[in-house]
């Protein structure tokens, strides 16, 4: 038996905040439907909304951490990647001070992720150099 379910969530394109249902067939998203009783959506979506699931399985999706060696990307493990980022950031922080590091958080990510990002920049790295593309 194939399983079919719809997952209620919020569209990831513009700032309207439309309620959508992702159609999941056997663990794979196959379509998007508007939420009928949503305050903003009222059963309607724009063309981007109707197609919001289409980019998810694009073959260009990154699936493993990459590290550049001699100008070329090679795949690496999470452990090694995290180790390298943390060590390098710690070294730069020690050598040049926390304000020599800056971070761009994301208008595409969730509130939880943005909260964690700025907490990390402020509490761990020790700088307020955190911004995102609100202006762009």
């Amino acid at each position, binding site marked *: 038996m194939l399983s079919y379910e719809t997952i209620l969530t919020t569209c990831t394109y513009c700032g309207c905040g439309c309620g959508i249902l992702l159609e999941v067939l056997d663990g794979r998203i196959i379509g998007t439907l508007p939420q009928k009783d949503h305050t903003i959506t009222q059963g309607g979506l724009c063309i981007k909304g109707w197609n919001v699931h289409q980019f998810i399985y694009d073959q260009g999706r990154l699936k493993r*951490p990459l590290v550049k060696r001699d100008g070329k990307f090679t795949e690496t493990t999470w452990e090694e990647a995290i180790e390298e980022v943390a060590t390098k950031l710690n070294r730069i922080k020690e050598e040049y001070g926390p304000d020599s590091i800056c971070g761009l958080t*994301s208008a595409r990510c969730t509130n939880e992720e943005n909260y964690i990002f700025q907490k990390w920049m402020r509490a761990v790295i020790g700088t307020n150099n955190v911004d995102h593309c609100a*202006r762009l």
Partner: protein
Amino acid sequence: MTNSIPELEESDCILVTGSNTTEAHPLVASRILRAKQKGATLIVIDPRRTQIARYADIFVRQKLGTDVAWINGLMHIILKEGWENKEFISKRTEGIEELKKELENYPPEKVEEITGISRADLRRIAEAYAKAKNASIIYAMGITQHITGTDNVISLANLAMLTGNIGKASSGVNPLRGQNNVQGACDMGGLPDVYPGYQSVTNETIAKKFEESWNAKLSRKPGLTIMEMFQSIEEGKVKAMYIMGENPMVSDPDLKHVEHTLKKLELLVVQDIFLTETAKLAHIVLPGVSFAEKEGTFTSTDRRVQRVRKAIEPLGEAKADHEIICKIAKRMGNDSFNYDSEEKIFEEMTRLTPIYHGITYERIEKDGIQWPCTNSEDPGTPFLHKDQFSKGKGTFFPIPYREPAEIVDEEFPFWLTTGRIGFQYHSRTMSGVSPSLQKEAKEGYVEMNPFDAIQLGIEEGEKVKVISRRGTIEIKTKLSFNVGRNMVFIPFHYFESAANVLTNTAVDPISKIPEFKVCAVRLEKIEEENP
């Protein structure tokens, strides 16, 4: 937004300026069109004849970068005719005398000369807006992406306060935010001068509250904005940059310079779902997941906090962005990044953030809640500034008109403005790989007036060079009367013909927003090489 999207439907006059609403915010546009169906007057003021302009009762084009002048011009007329809301002004505002003095400098004939909007149109607009019962202003990047972006926004606020069109349902000043969670990223303290909930990093009491909760010593010095970050990399002061889910290689002004700058970094880490133009320059790239592979919340443009739910497992070894950051934080030696779930992160945030204090996952299980929501009984806030402004009285700030940073001249005789199209999204990382969307709008174009094309001997669909003081791109033409004479428009989405190679990096002194909406260019035919 001071109001909610659904409220727009009940406005009796809607002034849309600098917002291509039907393309960039379709579901807001549908409410505007419904209001019009119910009898509202729709006014559109935009240098381009956008789709929504075709439905307008009054549509006028202003010259690029002259917004302060027309807004002051409207207020001049309103005061002269006695259409202002005297009760609102005396009860809820201060500084009207200073404003009146400045507005004397904006008689209709002068405003007509600066802006290109006729005296008669200015008067019609002033009357329709001022006499409406519930008038709403809608704006977007067309107002903010100027060196006078802050001035433009303050001027619109002046106009709303002068006529009492704020602090009630269906009536206010409504910026439309471009990205799904740009409101949330700001709310969460993704800004260099504030903690979550717009609490200043320079305020001692607030900083102590966060120090206690995060068990860390925190800097009281406001950080760098994006544009300042690039400058500091250039000056050698910034050595490392961590970019989560952003693509400045398409979205920022003067791209050649951005690339040159990013290459100077000792360490560039990019966390994204695709190998974006920015990620290609990184030393380390970490794979994040899409919105469908994680739990959390987004906050929409009308301050509505809503749930994001996981529909599928992460692809490959990709991880949710917060998981990656928590791993790095722990590896850097900090132990306050242990969370069992996204809900736990949300709870920590709401404890520290008064405007989100009353919101829980349970309360937004079905419908979202609009902040401020300060306690568990608080139903949230559909519109802001009801009985008073957050600072008490609303202050009128007199704003003099200033010209854009770059003006057309003999060498660069065309005005360039940039913007979005309905089928693509920002830097196209997602929409560009969506077959249905890509089919509709495969490549970039420069929109130009047919009369200008004839004069330059350029044809529809011909590839031309567009040149500014920053760079040159080659791009196909699209002839259209949607743009006036001596003006061109390029959607900024396409890396292959990137409008932001051309745009000016001059920024607003307060908001630091770059002037994407105005610069000077020239167009050249590409001469075919003779065989």
